[in-house]
């Protein structure tokens, strides 16, 4: 936290004007994300997790407060290609091979042909998809497709990775494995990661900081700094420390709900 803030939100509000009147998706959100942090956003459906992530990515514009990414406006950060975004669905282009999909951002950003091939090779190895480059998306399992979409977000080596429930649609076994891989990748690359999830164990296992949110209006109810070490084997989930943090997250979620009724 002493490190330089990568993402800084001060009193951020975001209201959607809909046909049934305004919807306050974010209310008075204050948050600082330091360099190299792994921040999870957790909360019930409709609490504004996606909206917050999209606002950071400049895909939505806050209607109040200030939001900066790398010290600039989110839109300037987007134009500087400061982040990679992983959507909930893999969203691979069906007419491109896996390598072709990973290459997409590189083509758009004007990398040389040789550099493109080199990077594709590297990130596919990173997500353990080497040898699948020539396959089409439908030839891969859902988990492999999701890994390919992560490789696509990693390919241009942005310092920030924004991930919106990337493993939401996967079964627990695959999810565990991908969590472990993601953590290793984070340790190796020193990226700043913002990660949306519905799962308490996933949030606690992955994060250095857990942001608990609650709905109507979407707001932050608790921010928990994890005391777990950076090095985390899967069985860390059975330690008392892990369970204590999980407990606090659950309390935060419950508090958000009772506020509601």
């Amino acid at each position, binding site marked *: 936290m002493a490190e330089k803030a990568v993402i800084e939100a001060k009193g951020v509000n975001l209201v959607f004007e809909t046909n049934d009147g305004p919807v306050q998706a974010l209310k008075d959100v204050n948050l600082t994300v330091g360099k190299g942090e792994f921040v999870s956003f957790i909360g019930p459906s409709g609490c504004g997790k996606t909206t917050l992530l999209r606002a950071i990515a400049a*895909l939505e514009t806050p209607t109040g407060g200030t939001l900066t990414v790398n010290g600039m406006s989110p839109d300037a950060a987007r134009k500087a290609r400061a982040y*990679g975004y992983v959507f909930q669905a893999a969203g691979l282009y069906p*007419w491109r091979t896996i390598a072709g999909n990973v290459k997409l951002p590189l083509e758009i*950003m004007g990398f040389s042909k040789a550099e493109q091939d080199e990077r594709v090779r590297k990130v596919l190895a990173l997500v353990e998809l080497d040898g699948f480059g020539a396959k089409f998306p439908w030839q891969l399992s859902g988990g492999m497709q999701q890994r390919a979409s992560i490789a696509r977000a990693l390919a241009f080596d942005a310092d920030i990775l924004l991930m919106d429930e990337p493993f939401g649609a996967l079964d627990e076994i695959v999810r565990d494995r991908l969590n472990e891989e993601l953590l290793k990748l984070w340790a190796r690359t020193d990226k700043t990661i913002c990660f949306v999830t519905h799962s308490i164990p996933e949030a606690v296992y992955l994060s250095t900081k857990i942001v608990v949110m609650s709905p109507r209006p979407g707001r932050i109810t608790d921010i928990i700094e994890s005391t777990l070490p950076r090095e985390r084997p899967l069985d860390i989930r059975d330690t008392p420390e892990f369970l204590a943090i999980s407990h606090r997250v659950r309390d935060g979620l419950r508090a958000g709900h009772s506020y509601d009724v």
Partner: protein
Amino acid sequence: MRAALPILAVLAVIVALWYAATVWMNAPWVRDQAARAGQEVTTSQLVRETMSQERPVLPAPHQVIAELWKGVTGQAVTSKRSLVYHAWVTVSATLLGFAIGTGLGILLAVGIVHNRAMDLSVMPWAIASQTIPILAIAPMIIVVLNSVGVQGLIPKAIISAYLSFFPVVVGMVKGFRSPDRMQLDLLKTYNASQGQTFWKLRWPSSAPYLFASLKVAVAASLVGAIVGEMPTGAVAGLGARLLSGSYYGQTIQIWAALFMAAIVAAGLVFIVGGIERATLKRMGLVR
């Protein structure tokens, strides 16, 4: 083979009905002739004679097939009496018109998708253009172009294009708009330009829509070319054959030309379908 059975059954029913209609529609003339000659006609005689007239109200299927066969194989394909020659005249105008119509349709769709003013203004005009009967427009186009010295292939191709651009515009607007919000947002996170978004996302996404439109457009092009041949003074082409056939009451010739047109249309649609399959397969869109 299984799929062929229902098709053959339907075909058999159509042929049977056709023969029945032939007898029924041509019988008055046969009876008339017999009455004038003061003869009685037996039923078998009646049936035989309804199917061998030179200018029947409705020719029998075998008469049409025979005429078609004669038209295709009876002489050199370059002869003015060859149906292959006439079909080629029509097809060349069809293909040129199809190319113009497709190009125009795609360009308009690109404009509609990228420009708000075009989005609001072009479609009503495009729809209006199709509500005017082509039979009313075609002679005007021919006459106007003729007065500036343009004749032959080009006017027919323009009528063809007039009919074929429309399905392409409609299909391609839908195709270019088919990428969902997530796919567009993804490109936004890369700060992709409008051109990159078009070539990397909108254009490939529209491929299935393009081919669906092209199948309709190629058939419409053929109709346009045939209609375009009717007011040209009936020199060459399937439209000219239809027209001269009706001048001289040559019903068999009309039907043979109609069949030829249908065969050509089926062939063109089949070719587009083949290109569609090959392209989508290469794109990995069919498994």
